[in-house]
């Protein structure tokens, strides 16, 4: 193992161990009934939370592709309205004979490894509360520094800033939640390339019995190279169910999000001139299915 690898391994283990130590002293958090949407709830002042997201992505037009994206987060309530968080994103990626989505006439190198992808900060500020105002409203800001492309596993230095507007409306004594997020994320890659991500998510969740909620989530993701809104590289629509369990001491949310439709469906021709395409989905920058498990523990 090289010195760099050893240092990265040490940092990862240190982070995981720190999380573990924190969580031995549980009390509890800023929980979400959704896998992909954010709600307007925020951590109360002075509270800490640990959260982990595990997202499995699988299914390309050709070859074998599986990724388990991990996001470990430590969050703190700076005030009752403002929270801040530090993320470590990493992932286990295994792929065999999968085309390069940037140029499908070539294949990505076959791969099976765990890597660190990026670190990021998050700030969330609640403007209106769904419990006391007609509509809950929160703004979200996340600067990020990446060293690896989580889709392809390739080394890539990239900076990005995610902006999110979160709206929430509750009904039936707050048992039924409707939430919607609008996300814009400009990205700057090493070498001068830049890109704009747009994402719209919405969903509902109903608490049907003590501790348990069931819901539905919708997600549309679009990308615009060179931040040119007149040139959309791709768009993919996802829709799926979620289930949430929350208690005083921990919570977990599971979301299944298959891609329903996407474009372009035809990604181009491989080295032999054969088209790589799916009948309904965009399988270049996305996959057929995503499954996300989130859990949180208040510290």
């Amino acid at each position: 193992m090289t010195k760099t690898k050893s240092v990265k391994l040490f940092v990862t283990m240190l982070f995981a161990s720190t999380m573990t130590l924190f969580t031995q002293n549980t009390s509890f958090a800023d929980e979400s009934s959704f896998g992909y949407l954010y709600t307007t709830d925020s951590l109360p002042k002075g509270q800490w939370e640990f959260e982990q997201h595990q997202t499995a992505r699988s299914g390309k037009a050709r070859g074998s592709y599986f990724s388990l994206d991990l996001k470990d987060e430590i969050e703190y309530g700076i005030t009752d309205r403002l929270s801040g968080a530090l993320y470590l994103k990493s992932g286990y990626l295994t792929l065999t004979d999968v085309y390069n989505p940037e140029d499908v006439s070539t294949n990505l190198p076959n791969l099976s490894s765990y890597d660190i992808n990026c670190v990021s900060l998050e700030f969330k500020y609640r403007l209106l509360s769904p419990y006391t105002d007609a509509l809950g409203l929160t703004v979200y800001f996340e600067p990020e520094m990446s060293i690896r492309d989580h889709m392809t596993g390739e080394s890539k230095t990239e900076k990005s800033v995610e902006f999110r507007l979160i709206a929430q409306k509750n009904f039936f004594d707050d048992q039924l939640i409707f939430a919607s997020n609008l996300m814009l994320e400009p990205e700057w890659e090493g070498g001068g390339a830049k890109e704009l991500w747009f994402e719209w998510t919405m969903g509902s969740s109903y608490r049907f019995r003590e501790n348990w909620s069931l819901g539905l989530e919708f997600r549309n993701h679009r990308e615009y190279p060179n931040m040119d809104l007149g040139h959309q590289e791709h768009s993919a629509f996802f829709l799926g169910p979620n289930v949430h369990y929350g208690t005083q001491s921990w919570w977990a949310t599971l979301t299944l999000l298959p891609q329903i439709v996407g474009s372009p469906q035809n990604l181009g021709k491989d080295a032999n001139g054969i088209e790589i395409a799916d009948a309904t989905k965009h399988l270049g920058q996305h996959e057929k299915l995503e499954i996300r498990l989130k859990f949180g523990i208040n510290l």
Partner: protein
Amino acid sequence: MAPRISKTGFGFLLTTSAIPLVAYSQVYLTEDQALQAIFPGEKFVRKILELSKNDIQTIEEKSNERVRNTSVVAWVNAIGNVILVDQALGKHEFITYAVGITSKKQVKNIEILEYRETYGYQVRQEDWRKQFIGKDATATLKLNKDIVNISGATLSSSHITGGVRRLLQTYETIKERL
């Protein structure tokens, strides 16, 4: 090339992330203890009354709150003091609370019997509960109006406030049968 970590490291990360989770519940007061906290030294008899459809309609119209439980747990005594025991929705589970109402139809005090939520334990604090003292069925009882919200515990504050408003209307509706 991005730094790679062995499967051992990956396994370690997952293992350390599988954190021991401790669930616990919190019962602060029994019903008997709540009676003594609100009306010290007084003797009460426990009754359970069933609400009719008309009762429910009246209570819901006057309180603007949904009636979830058609049975009312009431402790009554000879001098006309009453304690109603009820449940309000918390974020995860029900919050059990009691409202003491004097023979003059005013709130003597409220007590939180069971609270199992992650946050919002401030609803048990006397400073917050004493806002309800002296309120009657004519009071507004709205968060951020005549009841101060607890920042960081808004859901619990809101649901308990609505619960007290509903119980005062429940008392007005069924007091002749108590």
